[in-house]
């Protein structure tokens, strides 16, 4: 597993999904209500630089690490990955006056995200929690696909074979993501594409969840129609090869 690729996944697929957590979960929104706008950036040496903004109960992830209120430089991708894994402590060099936000509110948000992404069977028994958790996983996976296609050596090989255009990665009557390919560079937007060249759709939320959890086989699902694919199948075929590697990084 490539540590740089994992760092990009941790930055944009994991921390980036805080955006959606606040949209879906009232508890997350409440943590940010009546708070001054704030920005927090991670500057990973040899890896990603990203800024989270917290404004009016909304979170946005932006590329780059400039003009932020709290700045956390990280010496390496390995160190950043350890921080995300809870095995190292982030140390800011700027924004000590906001240390309370970092220790309290931000930690609470990431703990809540972890609860959704590493959900217990007990929590998943609640249909509302189940739906939110599955939607968040869809976003994590769809963003991770782009990071793997852009940074992982084998993922780059797959991306090299993907023609330009948008692929819709979606759950029927539910959430969707767009995986955009331009000159074999991938990027993800967490919305349904307007003019997809290919569509990969899961029949139900439950099926998507079972697939994400590795409880069902994707090829068998294509056979029984619970996963449908159409359009430029060579786009989906190569995205699926990247999707195979998502589990390697997110396990």
């Amino acid at each position, binding site marked *: 597993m490539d540590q740089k690729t994992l760092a990009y996944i941790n930055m944009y697929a994991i921390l980036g999904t805080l955006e959606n957590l606040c949209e879906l979960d009232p508890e997350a929104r409440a943590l940010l209500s009546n708070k001054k706008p704030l920005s927090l950036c991670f500057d990973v040496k040899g890896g990603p630089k990203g800024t989270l903004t917290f404004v009016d109960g909304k979170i946005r992830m932006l590329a780059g690490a400039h003009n932020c209120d709290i700045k956390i430089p990280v010496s390496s991708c390995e160190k950043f990955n350890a921080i995300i894994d809870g095995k190292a402590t982030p140390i800011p060099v700027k924004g000590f006056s906001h240390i309370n936000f970092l220790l309290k509110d931000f930690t609470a948000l990431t703990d809540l995200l972890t609860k959704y992404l590493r959900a217990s069977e007990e929590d998943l028994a609640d249909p509302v929690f189940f739906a939110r958790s599955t939607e968040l996983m869809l976003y994590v996976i769809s963003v991770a696909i782009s990071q793997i296609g852009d940074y992982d050596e084998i993922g780059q*090989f797959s991306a090299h074979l993907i023609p330009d*255009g948008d692929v819709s990665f979606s759950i029927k009557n539910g959430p969707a993501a767009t995986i955009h390919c331009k000159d074999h560079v991938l990027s993800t937007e967490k919305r349904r594409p307007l003019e997809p060249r290919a569509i990969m759709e899961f029949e139900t939320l439950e099926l998507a969840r079972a697939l994400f959890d590795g409880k069902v086989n994707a*090829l068998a699902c294509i*056979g*029984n129609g619970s996963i449908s694919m*159409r359009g430029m199948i060579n786009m989906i075929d190569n995205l699926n090869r990247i999707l195979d590697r998502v589990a390697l990084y997110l396990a």
Partner: protein
Amino acid sequence: MEIYKHEKSRAWFDRAAKVIPSGVYGHLGPAEGNFIPVSQWPLLGSRAQGAYFWDVDGNRYLDYMCAYGPNILGYNDPDVDAAAAEQAKIGNCFTSPSYKMVELAELMVDTVASADWAFFAKNGNDVTTAAIMCARAHTHKKKIIFVDGFYHGVAPWTQKVDYPGVIPEDVANNLYVPWNNIQALEEMIAANDGEIAAFISTPYMHGNYLDNVLPADGYWNKVRELCTKHGIVLIVDDVRAGFRLSTAGSDAYYGFEADLITFCKAIANGWNVSCLCGKEFIRDSMSALSYTGSYWMSAVPFAAGIANITKMRQLNLPAILREKAVKVCDTFRSAAANNGFKLVISGEPALFYLRVANDDSLFLHQEWVAACVSRGLFITSHHNHFLNYAVADEDIAFTGEVADEAFKVVAKNHPEVFDGGCA
């Protein structure tokens, strides 16, 4: 026109999925076969005859996939099957290989222009792998040049680094050049001077998901020249196109000679045998390989192969297939044009490749293909097709009827493209 239902197919597939990984795997299954949407395709078959097969629901299909190539004379050809039945009565798989193997080898050498010898196995992958091993044994070099969009089987060396179960070391010595690009090939050879064992390619680019492309004028002669100059073994993978362009081999059809050439699908009209043919200079290297299989010398497929090749030669079958295929392609073109569709037909006529080009996503193409299949015309979305001798004029007329209705259905479903239902 009746729209087929597939209830028994579904039931059989569900049973299959319980005991077979992915139910039906590989090119005949719904995933690799691109059954889009899966509900409109047969999943399991019951029987076949001539140009047709029937699924387990009793639906009949005019089959332009021909089991992905093996059916070249028509399913259950009486001459081929009689030879196989006769041989089956006296022995198939026994300890001493039947003399039928020698007879088929002699026939292959007599039929295939570049062949000085023949080596038999079961599937295309067996003989493409044999060809690569033979080339490496002969040259003592390790690198192989492939053409982008290639398919040469399923062994790890034929796959790509991102395929499940393949490790980087499996494909570490694979080099890739674009089709029809002599300059890229020259540069690749120069960049790997003295390290290249073989150049392997199909006779023309009949890869999947893309329009098929014939060799440019002079391309193969230049490739031949470069391979000879640099001591690179020239391997032609004729597993798919073999015997449909020429009984003498597709290298002969395009006016050059391969060092090694592989055959499989159409050798025995569905009986399981594959063959590697080679030039005299590389015979000893082939002899040196440790390479065999439990059923590779079974006599029944040899007997079928002898009958099939003999009949193909007597008929001058490639010329007949070409004539029929041109009619089929013209029929598709007319149906498309009459309904306002842009249908691109590429590749050699006997292995025509179809693409509806009204959109850049292939959504319309897949809808049309599915509409054809569910009305009894078995074509596929992203693979070349195959002609067989049993296709008659009335079958071609049926092709036109189904294609026309399917185009009308798609047009009606997409007024945003076809201006109110039928352009």
